[in-house]
Protein backbone atom coordinates (compact mmCIF):
# COMPACT_ATOMS: atom_id res chain seq x y z
CA UNK A 1 0.00 0.00 0.00
CA UNK A 2 1.20 3.50 -0.80
CA UNK A 3 0.15 6.44 1.36
CA UNK A 4 0.78 10.10 0.59
CA UNK A 5 0.04 12.45 3.44
CA UNK A 6 -0.07 16.13 2.58
CA UNK A 7 3.07 15.62 0.55
CA UNK A 8 4.81 18.50 -1.22
CA UNK A 9 8.18 18.65 -2.88
CA UNK A 10 10.27 21.42 -4.35
CA UNK A 11 13.49 20.71 -6.28
CA UNK A 12 16.52 22.51 -4.93
CA UNK A 13 17.10 24.46 -8.13
CA UNK A 14 13.54 25.60 -8.57
CA UNK A 15 11.23 28.22 -7.06
CA UNK A 16 7.91 26.48 -7.61
CA UNK A 17 6.72 23.29 -5.98
CA UNK A 18 6.86 20.29 -8.29
CA UNK A 19 4.21 18.56 -6.19
CA UNK A 20 1.83 20.21 -3.79
CA UNK A 21 -0.50 18.91 -1.13
CA UNK A 22 -0.77 15.34 -2.37
CA UNK A 23 -2.86 13.14 -0.10
CA UNK A 24 -3.99 9.80 -1.37
CA UNK A 25 -3.76 6.07 -0.85
CA UNK A 26 -3.05 3.48 -3.48
CA UNK A 27 -4.24 0.05 -2.39
CA UNK A 28 -2.37 -3.16 -3.13
CA UNK A 29 -3.41 -4.65 -6.43
CA UNK A 30 -4.58 -1.36 -7.92
CA UNK A 31 -4.04 -0.47 -11.58
CA UNK A 32 -3.52 3.30 -11.60
CA UNK A 33 -2.99 5.54 -14.61
CA UNK A 34 -1.57 9.04 -14.38
CA UNK A 35 -2.05 11.63 -17.09
CA UNK A 36 -1.24 15.31 -17.32
CA UNK A 37 0.70 17.91 -19.25
CA UNK A 38 4.46 18.00 -19.20
CA UNK A 39 5.67 19.67 -16.06
CA UNK A 40 2.58 18.62 -14.16
CA UNK A 41 4.69 16.57 -11.73
CA UNK A 42 4.01 13.07 -13.04
CA UNK A 43 7.63 11.94 -13.14
CA UNK A 44 8.31 13.59 -9.77
CA UNK A 45 5.45 11.58 -8.32
CA UNK A 46 6.96 8.35 -9.65
CA UNK A 47 10.36 9.31 -8.21
CA UNK A 48 8.87 9.57 -4.72
CA UNK A 49 7.63 5.97 -4.93
CA UNK A 50 11.09 4.50 -5.50
CA UNK A 51 12.77 6.76 -2.96
CA UNK A 52 14.79 8.63 -5.58
CA UNK A 53 13.13 11.62 -3.99
CA UNK A 54 14.44 12.52 -1.42
CA UNK A 55 17.55 10.28 -1.65
CA UNK A 56 18.86 11.25 -5.06
CA UNK A 57 17.33 14.68 -5.73
CA UNK A 58 17.82 17.39 -3.15
CA UNK A 59 14.96 19.69 -2.28
CA UNK A 60 12.33 20.61 0.28
CA UNK A 61 10.26 17.62 1.31
CA UNK A 62 7.04 18.17 3.25
CA UNK A 63 4.53 15.63 4.51
CA UNK A 64 5.17 11.93 4.20
CA UNK A 65 5.19 9.12 1.67
CA UNK A 66 4.90 5.55 2.92
CA UNK A 67 5.39 2.49 0.77
CA UNK A 68 4.31 -0.76 2.44
CA UNK A 69 4.39 1.14 5.72
CA UNK A 70 8.01 2.26 5.23
CA UNK A 71 8.69 5.97 5.27
CA UNK A 72 10.62 6.75 2.07
CA UNK A 73 12.70 9.36 3.90
CA UNK A 74 13.93 6.82 6.43
CA UNK A 75 14.74 3.79 4.30
CA UNK A 76 17.31 3.65 1.54
CA UNK A 77 16.30 3.27 -2.11
CA UNK A 78 17.73 -0.27 -2.30
CA UNK A 79 15.41 -1.32 0.52
CA UNK A 80 12.42 0.17 -1.29
CA UNK A 81 13.62 -1.40 -4.54
CA UNK A 82 12.71 -4.77 -3.07
CA UNK A 83 9.04 -3.93 -3.58
CA UNK A 84 9.10 -1.08 -6.08
CA UNK A 85 10.40 -1.51 -9.62
CA UNK A 86 10.49 1.65 -11.68
CA UNK A 87 10.95 2.08 -15.43
CA UNK A 88 12.13 5.62 -16.03
CA UNK A 89 11.10 7.86 -18.86
CA UNK A 90 14.60 8.35 -20.27
CA UNK A 91 15.27 4.93 -21.71
CA UNK A 92 18.88 5.44 -22.80
CA UNK A 93 20.29 6.68 -19.55
CA UNK A 94 18.68 4.03 -17.35
CA UNK A 95 20.63 1.26 -19.05
CA UNK A 96 23.50 -0.06 -16.96
CA UNK A 97 24.93 -2.73 -19.29
CA UNK A 98 26.02 -2.98 -22.88
CA UNK A 99 24.24 -6.25 -23.65
CA UNK A 100 20.53 -7.01 -23.39
CA UNK A 101 20.94 -10.16 -21.31
CA UNK A 102 23.19 -8.39 -18.78
CA UNK A 103 20.72 -5.56 -18.47
CA UNK A 104 17.97 -8.00 -17.49
CA UNK A 105 20.28 -9.95 -15.16
CA UNK A 106 21.51 -6.83 -13.34
CA UNK A 107 18.63 -6.36 -10.90
CA UNK A 108 18.19 -10.08 -10.23
CA UNK A 109 21.91 -10.54 -9.54
CA UNK A 110 21.97 -7.58 -7.18
CA UNK A 111 19.05 -8.86 -5.15
CA UNK A 112 20.67 -12.27 -4.88
CA UNK A 113 17.93 -14.20 -6.62
CA UNK A 114 18.91 -17.93 -6.60
CA UNK A 115 20.65 -18.86 -9.85
CA UNK A 116 18.16 -21.45 -11.12
CA UNK A 117 15.38 -18.95 -10.48
CA UNK A 118 17.32 -16.28 -12.44
CA UNK A 119 17.42 -18.51 -15.53
CA UNK A 120 13.69 -19.18 -15.30
CA UNK A 121 12.76 -15.52 -14.87
CA UNK A 122 15.11 -14.45 -17.66
CA UNK A 123 13.38 -16.83 -20.08
CA UNK A 124 9.97 -15.77 -18.89
CA UNK A 125 10.47 -12.01 -19.39
CA UNK A 126 12.20 -12.50 -22.74
CA UNK A 127 9.17 -14.44 -23.98
CA UNK A 128 6.66 -12.17 -22.30
CA UNK A 129 7.98 -9.12 -24.15
CA UNK A 130 8.86 -11.01 -27.32
CA UNK A 131 12.52 -9.99 -27.25
CA UNK A 132 14.20 -13.41 -27.16
CA UNK A 133 15.97 -12.68 -30.45
CA UNK A 134 17.55 -9.56 -28.92
CA UNK A 135 19.12 -11.44 -26.00
CA UNK A 136 22.75 -11.20 -27.15
CA UNK A 137 22.50 -7.87 -28.93
CA UNK A 138 24.41 -4.73 -27.98
CA UNK A 139 21.95 -2.29 -26.42
CA UNK A 140 23.47 0.60 -28.39
CA UNK A 141 22.42 -1.14 -31.62
CA UNK A 142 18.72 -1.38 -30.69
CA UNK A 143 15.90 0.87 -31.83
CA UNK A 144 14.02 3.06 -29.35
CA UNK A 145 11.10 0.68 -29.11
CA UNK A 146 13.35 -2.34 -28.60
CA UNK A 147 15.25 -0.52 -25.84
CA UNK A 148 11.97 0.33 -24.18
CA UNK A 149 10.97 -3.32 -24.10
CA UNK A 150 14.37 -4.24 -22.66
CA UNK A 151 14.00 -1.60 -19.94
CA UNK A 152 10.56 -2.95 -19.02
CA UNK A 153 11.85 -6.55 -19.09
CA UNK A 154 14.71 -5.61 -16.75
CA UNK A 155 12.26 -4.30 -14.17
CA UNK A 156 9.72 -7.12 -14.54
CA UNK A 157 12.52 -9.67 -14.06
CA UNK A 158 13.03 -8.31 -10.56
CA UNK A 159 9.42 -9.33 -9.86
CA UNK A 160 8.50 -6.28 -7.74
CA UNK A 161 5.16 -6.02 -5.93
CA UNK A 162 4.69 -2.49 -7.16
CA UNK A 163 5.51 -1.71 -10.79
CA UNK A 164 5.92 1.96 -11.70
CA UNK A 165 6.30 2.93 -15.34
CA UNK A 166 6.89 6.44 -16.64
CA UNK A 167 5.57 6.64 -20.20
CA UNK A 168 6.44 3.04 -21.07
CA UNK A 169 4.99 3.28 -24.57
CA UNK A 170 6.57 6.58 -25.60
CA UNK A 171 8.77 4.97 -28.25
CA UNK A 172 6.47 2.11 -29.15
CA UNK A 173 4.19 1.49 -32.11
CA UNK A 174 0.45 1.06 -31.39
CA UNK A 175 0.56 -2.76 -31.47
CA UNK A 176 3.47 -2.93 -29.01
CA UNK A 177 1.80 -0.35 -26.78
CA UNK A 178 -1.24 -2.59 -26.51
CA UNK A 179 1.05 -5.56 -25.86
CA UNK A 180 2.68 -3.73 -22.93
CA UNK A 181 -0.69 -2.84 -21.43
CA UNK A 182 -1.89 -6.41 -21.90
CA UNK A 183 1.17 -7.59 -19.96
CA UNK A 184 0.54 -5.05 -17.23
CA UNK A 185 -3.09 -6.14 -16.99
CA UNK A 186 -2.03 -9.77 -16.70
CA UNK A 187 0.50 -8.96 -13.97
CA UNK A 188 -2.16 -6.95 -12.20
CA UNK A 189 -5.00 -9.47 -12.43
CA UNK A 190 -3.17 -12.79 -12.25
CA UNK A 191 -0.32 -11.93 -9.93
CA UNK A 192 -1.93 -9.14 -7.94
CA UNK A 193 0.79 -6.62 -8.73
CA UNK A 194 0.15 -2.96 -8.08
CA UNK A 195 0.71 -1.14 -11.37
CA UNK A 196 1.17 2.62 -11.58
CA UNK A 197 1.64 3.93 -15.08
CA UNK A 198 2.19 7.44 -16.43
CA UNK A 199 0.84 7.54 -19.97
CA UNK A 200 -0.12 10.16 -22.53
CA UNK A 201 -2.37 7.88 -24.57
CA UNK A 202 -5.73 8.47 -22.90
CA UNK A 203 -7.43 5.72 -24.86
CA UNK A 204 -5.09 3.09 -23.45
CA UNK A 205 -5.60 4.37 -19.92
CA UNK A 206 -9.38 4.35 -20.24
CA UNK A 207 -9.34 0.83 -21.50
CA UNK A 208 -6.96 -0.70 -18.99
CA UNK A 209 -6.69 1.16 -15.71
CA UNK A 210 -9.10 0.97 -12.78
CA UNK A 211 -8.23 4.35 -11.39
CA UNK A 212 -7.19 7.47 -13.23
CA UNK A 213 -5.25 10.42 -11.79
CA UNK A 214 -5.15 13.67 -13.71
CA UNK A 215 -2.37 16.02 -12.70
CA UNK A 216 -1.90 19.69 -13.32
CA UNK A 217 0.74 22.05 -11.90
CA UNK A 218 1.83 19.68 -9.15
CA UNK A 219 -1.67 18.82 -7.97
CA UNK A 220 -4.03 15.96 -8.53
CA UNK A 221 -7.08 17.56 -10.14
CA UNK A 222 -9.03 14.39 -10.80
CA UNK A 223 -8.92 11.05 -9.05
CA UNK A 224 -11.52 8.50 -9.99
CA UNK A 225 -12.56 5.52 -12.03
CA UNK A 226 -11.79 5.82 -15.71
CA UNK A 227 -15.50 5.63 -16.58
CA UNK A 228 -16.02 8.87 -14.71
CA UNK A 229 -14.05 10.89 -17.22
CA UNK A 230 -17.26 11.12 -19.22
CA UNK A 231 -18.40 13.74 -16.74
CA UNK A 232 -15.01 15.41 -16.75
CA UNK A 233 -14.73 16.31 -20.41
CA UNK A 234 -14.69 20.09 -19.72
CA UNK A 235 -11.86 19.63 -17.21
CA UNK A 236 -9.85 17.64 -19.74
CA UNK A 237 -10.50 20.20 -22.47
CA UNK A 238 -9.40 22.95 -20.08
CA UNK A 239 -6.11 21.20 -19.40
CA UNK A 240 -5.57 20.49 -23.06
CA UNK A 241 -5.66 16.71 -22.56
CA UNK A 242 -7.45 14.79 -25.27
CA UNK A 243 -10.47 12.80 -24.26
CA UNK A 244 -10.95 9.54 -26.16
CA UNK A 245 -12.61 10.22 -29.49
CA UNK A 246 -15.29 7.63 -28.77
CA UNK A 247 -16.31 9.63 -25.69
CA UNK A 248 -16.46 12.81 -27.74
CA UNK A 249 -18.54 11.08 -30.42
CA UNK A 250 -20.87 9.65 -27.79
CA UNK A 251 -21.39 13.05 -26.24
CA UNK A 252 -22.02 14.70 -29.59
CA UNK A 253 -24.58 12.05 -30.53
CA UNK A 254 -26.27 12.42 -27.14
CA UNK A 255 -26.33 16.21 -27.44
CA UNK A 256 -27.91 15.88 -30.88
CA UNK A 257 -30.60 13.69 -29.34
CA UNK A 258 -29.65 10.69 -31.47
CA UNK A 259 -28.37 8.46 -28.68
CA UNK A 260 -29.62 7.86 -25.16
CA UNK A 261 -27.41 5.06 -23.78
CA UNK A 262 -24.20 5.10 -21.76
CA UNK A 263 -21.25 7.00 -23.25
CA UNK A 264 -18.83 4.45 -24.78
CA UNK A 265 -15.29 4.13 -23.42
CA UNK A 266 -13.71 1.78 -25.91
CA UNK A 267 -14.08 0.75 -29.54
CA UNK A 268 -16.40 -2.20 -28.90
CA UNK A 269 -18.86 -0.05 -27.01
CA UNK A 270 -18.56 2.66 -29.66
CA UNK A 271 -19.37 0.15 -32.38
CA UNK A 272 -22.51 -0.89 -30.49
CA UNK A 273 -23.52 2.75 -30.09
CA UNK A 274 -23.05 3.56 -33.76
CA UNK A 275 -25.04 0.47 -34.77
CA UNK A 276 -27.84 1.47 -32.40
CA UNK A 277 -27.95 5.02 -33.75
CA UNK A 278 -27.95 3.76 -37.33
CA UNK A 279 -30.70 1.23 -36.57
CA UNK A 280 -32.83 3.96 -34.96
CA UNK A 281 -32.37 6.10 -38.03
CA UNK A 282 -33.48 3.18 -40.13
CA UNK A 283 -30.25 2.93 -42.13
Amino acid at each position, binding site marked *: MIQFEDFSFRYKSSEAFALQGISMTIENGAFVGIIGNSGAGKSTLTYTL*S*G*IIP*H*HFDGDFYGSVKVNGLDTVEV*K*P*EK*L*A*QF*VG*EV*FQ*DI*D*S*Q*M*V*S*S*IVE*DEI*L*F*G*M*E*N*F*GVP*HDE*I*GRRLDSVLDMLGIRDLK*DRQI*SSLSGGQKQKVAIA*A*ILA*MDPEIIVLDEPTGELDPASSIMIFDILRRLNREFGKTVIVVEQKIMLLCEYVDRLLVMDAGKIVFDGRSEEIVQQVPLFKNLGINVPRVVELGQQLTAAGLYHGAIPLDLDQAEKMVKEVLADAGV
Partner: protein
Amino acid sequence: MNLLQYQPGESFLHKLNPVTKLLAVFLYCVACIISDSIFVELGLIFLMLIICFFAGLGKRALSLTKNLLILGGMMFILQLLFVRTGTPLLKIGSLCIFTTGGVFSALLLSCRIIATMLPMMLLFAITQMTDLCGAMVKRLHIPYRYAFIVTTAFRFVPLFTSEFHDIEDAQKARGVEYDTKNIFKKIGLVVPLVVPLLMSSLKKVDAGAMSAEVRGFNLRTVRSGYRDYPFAAGDGVCIALTVVLIIISALL
Protein backbone atom coordinates in the same frame (compact mmCIF):
# COMPACT_ATOMS: atom_id res chain seq x y z
CA MET B 1 35.72 0.21 -37.32
CA ASN B 2 36.45 0.62 -33.65
CA LEU B 3 39.77 -1.09 -32.93
CA LEU B 4 38.67 -2.25 -29.50
CA GLN B 5 35.31 -3.62 -30.63
CA TYR B 6 34.29 -7.15 -29.71
CA GLN B 7 34.10 -9.58 -32.61
CA PRO B 8 31.71 -12.45 -31.85
CA GLY B 9 32.98 -15.94 -32.59
CA GLU B 10 33.13 -19.54 -31.49
CA SER B 11 36.87 -20.16 -31.86
CA PHE B 12 39.11 -21.83 -29.28
CA LEU B 13 40.37 -18.37 -28.32
CA HIS B 14 36.86 -17.07 -27.70
CA LYS B 15 36.05 -20.04 -25.51
CA LEU B 16 38.90 -19.56 -23.06
CA ASN B 17 38.08 -18.22 -19.64
CA PRO B 18 38.36 -14.39 -19.66
CA VAL B 19 40.79 -14.52 -16.73
CA THR B 20 42.97 -16.96 -18.69
CA LYS B 21 42.91 -14.66 -21.70
CA LEU B 22 44.02 -11.75 -19.57
CA LEU B 23 46.79 -13.73 -17.89
CA ALA B 24 47.94 -15.24 -21.21
CA VAL B 25 48.13 -11.79 -22.79
CA PHE B 26 50.14 -10.57 -19.82
CA LEU B 27 52.55 -13.52 -20.08
CA TYR B 28 52.84 -13.07 -23.84
CA CYS B 29 53.78 -9.43 -23.24
CA VAL B 30 56.36 -10.51 -20.66
CA ALA B 31 57.88 -12.81 -23.30
CA CYS B 32 58.03 -9.86 -25.72
CA ILE B 33 59.60 -7.54 -23.15
CA ILE B 34 62.32 -9.83 -21.77
CA SER B 35 63.64 -10.75 -25.20
CA ASP B 36 66.50 -8.67 -26.64
CA SER B 37 66.45 -10.25 -30.07
CA ILE B 38 64.71 -8.65 -33.03
CA PHE B 39 64.17 -12.14 -34.50
CA VAL B 40 62.35 -13.33 -31.39
CA GLU B 41 60.13 -10.23 -31.50
CA LEU B 42 59.36 -10.83 -35.17
CA GLY B 43 58.74 -14.50 -34.37
CA LEU B 44 56.29 -13.53 -31.64
CA ILE B 45 54.42 -11.19 -34.00
CA PHE B 46 54.17 -13.96 -36.60
CA LEU B 47 53.11 -16.51 -34.01
CA MET B 48 50.32 -14.20 -32.85
CA LEU B 49 49.19 -13.66 -36.45
CA ILE B 50 49.16 -17.41 -37.11
CA ILE B 51 47.14 -18.09 -33.95
CA CYS B 52 44.69 -15.40 -35.04
CA PHE B 53 44.33 -16.91 -38.50
CA PHE B 54 43.43 -20.27 -36.96
CA ALA B 55 40.92 -18.53 -34.70
CA GLY B 56 39.29 -16.83 -37.70
CA LEU B 57 40.55 -13.41 -36.65
CA GLY B 58 43.17 -13.08 -39.40
CA LYS B 59 41.69 -10.00 -41.05
CA ARG B 60 41.28 -8.22 -37.76
CA ALA B 61 44.84 -9.07 -36.68
CA LEU B 62 46.29 -7.82 -39.97
CA SER B 63 44.42 -4.53 -39.82
CA LEU B 64 45.57 -4.10 -36.21
CA THR B 65 49.16 -4.81 -37.24
CA LYS B 66 48.85 -2.24 -40.00
CA ASN B 67 47.67 0.33 -37.48
CA LEU B 68 50.41 -0.59 -35.04
CA LEU B 69 53.02 -0.19 -37.80
CA ILE B 70 52.32 3.53 -37.76
CA LEU B 71 53.02 3.66 -34.02
CA GLY B 72 56.06 1.43 -34.50
CA GLY B 73 57.31 3.72 -37.27
CA MET B 74 57.06 6.78 -35.04
CA MET B 75 58.95 5.06 -32.25
CA PHE B 76 61.55 3.93 -34.79
CA ILE B 77 62.27 7.51 -35.85
CA LEU B 78 62.46 8.77 -32.27
CA GLN B 79 64.84 6.01 -31.18
CA LEU B 80 66.92 6.45 -34.30
CA LEU B 81 67.49 10.12 -33.55
CA PHE B 82 68.07 9.82 -29.81
CA VAL B 83 70.11 6.64 -29.28
CA ARG B 84 73.77 7.49 -29.79
CA THR B 85 75.67 4.23 -29.23
CA GLY B 86 77.80 2.33 -31.76
CA THR B 87 79.50 3.80 -34.79
CA PRO B 88 77.99 6.69 -36.80
CA LEU B 89 76.20 5.55 -39.96
CA LEU B 90 75.07 8.85 -41.44
CA LYS B 91 76.84 12.16 -41.01
CA ILE B 92 76.08 15.57 -42.43
CA GLY B 93 79.28 17.54 -41.96
CA SER B 94 80.29 17.01 -38.34
CA LEU B 95 76.67 16.35 -37.26
CA CYS B 96 75.93 12.68 -36.67
CA ILE B 97 72.34 11.83 -37.67
CA PHE B 98 72.18 8.20 -36.55
CA THR B 99 74.38 5.33 -35.43
CA THR B 100 74.44 1.52 -35.66
CA GLY B 101 73.27 1.29 -32.04
CA GLY B 102 70.42 3.61 -32.89
CA VAL B 103 69.26 1.48 -35.78
CA PHE B 104 69.42 -1.69 -33.69
CA SER B 105 67.57 -0.35 -30.68
CA ALA B 106 65.02 1.46 -32.87
CA LEU B 107 64.22 -1.76 -34.73
CA LEU B 108 64.02 -3.74 -31.50
CA LEU B 109 61.77 -1.23 -29.78
CA SER B 110 59.34 -0.80 -32.64
CA CYS B 111 59.06 -4.59 -33.08
CA ARG B 112 58.57 -4.97 -29.35
CA ILE B 113 55.81 -2.38 -29.31
CA ILE B 114 53.95 -4.17 -32.07
CA ALA B 115 54.51 -7.57 -30.47
CA THR B 116 53.15 -6.43 -27.08
CA MET B 117 50.29 -4.27 -28.34
CA LEU B 118 48.91 -6.85 -30.75
CA PRO B 119 47.81 -9.43 -28.14
CA MET B 120 46.49 -6.70 -25.86
CA MET B 121 44.27 -5.30 -28.58
CA LEU B 122 43.18 -8.77 -29.67
CA LEU B 123 42.05 -9.41 -26.11
CA PHE B 124 39.23 -6.93 -26.73
CA ALA B 125 38.36 -8.55 -30.05
CA ILE B 126 37.74 -11.93 -28.41
CA THR B 127 36.37 -10.87 -25.01
CA GLN B 128 33.21 -9.01 -24.09
CA MET B 129 34.09 -6.34 -21.56
CA THR B 130 31.27 -7.55 -19.30
CA ASP B 131 32.63 -11.11 -19.39
CA LEU B 132 36.11 -9.91 -18.52
CA CYS B 133 34.84 -7.92 -15.56
CA GLY B 134 32.36 -10.61 -14.54
CA ALA B 135 35.06 -13.27 -14.52
CA MET B 136 37.42 -11.04 -12.56
CA VAL B 137 34.75 -10.45 -9.93
CA LYS B 138 33.83 -14.12 -9.77
CA ARG B 139 37.29 -15.73 -10.00
CA LEU B 140 39.69 -13.07 -8.71
CA HIS B 141 37.22 -11.50 -6.24
CA ILE B 142 37.81 -7.98 -7.52
CA PRO B 143 35.15 -5.70 -5.94
CA TYR B 144 32.15 -5.40 -8.27
CA ARG B 145 32.20 -1.63 -7.84
CA TYR B 146 35.48 -1.37 -9.78
CA ALA B 147 34.42 -3.82 -12.44
CA PHE B 148 31.23 -1.79 -12.91
CA ILE B 149 33.25 1.42 -13.32
CA VAL B 150 35.34 -0.16 -16.08
CA THR B 151 32.38 -1.63 -17.98
CA THR B 152 30.49 1.64 -17.68
CA ALA B 153 33.45 3.62 -19.01
CA PHE B 154 33.65 1.30 -22.03
CA ARG B 155 29.90 1.49 -22.53
CA PHE B 156 30.04 5.27 -22.63
CA VAL B 157 32.52 5.48 -25.51
CA PRO B 158 29.95 4.68 -28.24
CA LEU B 159 27.27 6.76 -26.46
CA PHE B 160 29.65 9.68 -26.37
CA THR B 161 30.53 9.44 -30.06
CA SER B 162 26.93 9.06 -31.15
CA GLU B 163 25.94 12.07 -29.06
CA PHE B 164 28.77 14.04 -30.62
CA HIS B 165 27.62 13.10 -34.11
CA ASP B 166 24.06 14.09 -33.24
CA ILE B 167 25.18 17.55 -32.16
CA GLU B 168 27.39 17.83 -35.23
CA ASP B 169 24.51 16.86 -37.53
CA ALA B 170 22.21 19.33 -35.85
CA GLN B 171 24.78 22.07 -36.37
CA LYS B 172 25.32 21.03 -39.99
CA ALA B 173 21.58 21.24 -40.58
CA ARG B 174 21.79 24.83 -39.36
CA GLY B 175 24.47 25.57 -41.92
CA VAL B 176 27.63 25.29 -39.80
CA GLU B 177 30.44 24.06 -42.04
CA TYR B 178 31.64 20.99 -40.14
CA ASP B 179 32.82 19.26 -43.28
CA THR B 180 35.52 21.85 -43.78
CA LYS B 181 38.94 20.51 -44.79
CA ASN B 182 40.71 23.20 -42.79
CA ILE B 183 41.76 21.48 -39.57
CA PHE B 184 42.12 24.72 -37.58
CA LYS B 185 38.68 25.90 -38.60
CA LYS B 186 37.27 22.51 -37.60
CA ILE B 187 38.91 22.63 -34.18
CA GLY B 188 37.48 26.09 -33.70
CA LEU B 189 34.01 24.72 -34.44
CA VAL B 190 34.34 21.65 -32.23
CA VAL B 191 35.64 23.36 -29.07
CA PRO B 192 32.32 25.09 -28.21
CA LEU B 193 30.61 21.66 -28.32
CA VAL B 194 32.82 20.21 -25.59
CA VAL B 195 30.97 21.83 -22.68
CA PRO B 196 27.42 20.82 -23.71
CA LEU B 197 28.69 17.34 -24.53
CA LEU B 198 30.30 17.06 -21.11
CA MET B 199 27.18 18.35 -19.38
CA SER B 200 24.87 15.92 -21.16
CA SER B 201 27.25 13.05 -20.41
CA LEU B 202 27.38 13.94 -16.73
CA LYS B 203 23.59 13.97 -16.70
CA LYS B 204 23.53 10.55 -18.34
CA VAL B 205 26.01 9.19 -15.81
CA ASP B 206 23.88 10.56 -12.98
CA ALA B 207 20.71 8.99 -14.37
CA GLY B 208 22.57 5.72 -14.82
CA ALA B 209 23.72 5.82 -11.20
CA MET B 210 20.15 6.46 -10.12
CA SER B 211 18.93 3.52 -12.15
CA ALA B 212 21.62 1.23 -10.74
CA GLU B 213 20.78 2.37 -7.22
CA VAL B 214 17.07 1.56 -7.44
CA ARG B 215 17.95 -1.81 -8.89
CA GLY B 216 19.91 -2.79 -5.82
CA PHE B 217 23.48 -2.01 -6.90
CA ASN B 218 24.57 -1.57 -3.28
CA LEU B 219 23.28 -4.99 -2.27
CA ARG B 220 25.51 -6.91 -4.63
CA THR B 221 28.01 -9.48 -3.36
CA VAL B 222 30.70 -11.57 -5.05
CA ARG B 223 28.34 -14.53 -5.25
CA SER B 224 25.55 -12.54 -6.93
CA GLY B 225 26.87 -12.95 -10.48
CA TYR B 226 24.75 -15.31 -12.58
CA ARG B 227 27.50 -16.47 -14.91
CA ASP B 228 30.09 -18.79 -13.43
CA TYR B 229 33.16 -18.65 -15.72
CA PRO B 230 34.60 -22.06 -14.81
CA PHE B 231 38.19 -22.93 -15.77
CA ALA B 232 38.63 -25.81 -18.23
CA ALA B 233 41.57 -27.94 -19.38
CA GLY B 234 42.17 -25.58 -22.32
CA ASP B 235 42.85 -22.75 -19.90
CA GLY B 236 45.68 -24.70 -18.25
CA VAL B 237 47.18 -25.65 -21.62
CA CYS B 238 47.05 -22.03 -22.78
CA ILE B 239 48.87 -20.73 -19.69
CA ALA B 240 51.45 -23.55 -19.85
CA LEU B 241 52.19 -22.70 -23.49
CA THR B 242 52.71 -19.00 -22.74
CA VAL B 243 55.06 -19.92 -19.88
CA VAL B 244 57.05 -22.09 -22.33
CA LEU B 245 57.11 -19.11 -24.66
CA ILE B 246 58.63 -16.92 -21.93
CA ILE B 247 61.33 -19.54 -21.28
CA ILE B 248 62.15 -19.78 -24.99
CA SER B 249 62.36 -16.02 -25.46
CA ALA B 250 64.53 -15.72 -22.32
CA LEU B 251 66.94 -18.38 -23.61
CA LEU B 252 67.25 -17.11 -27.18
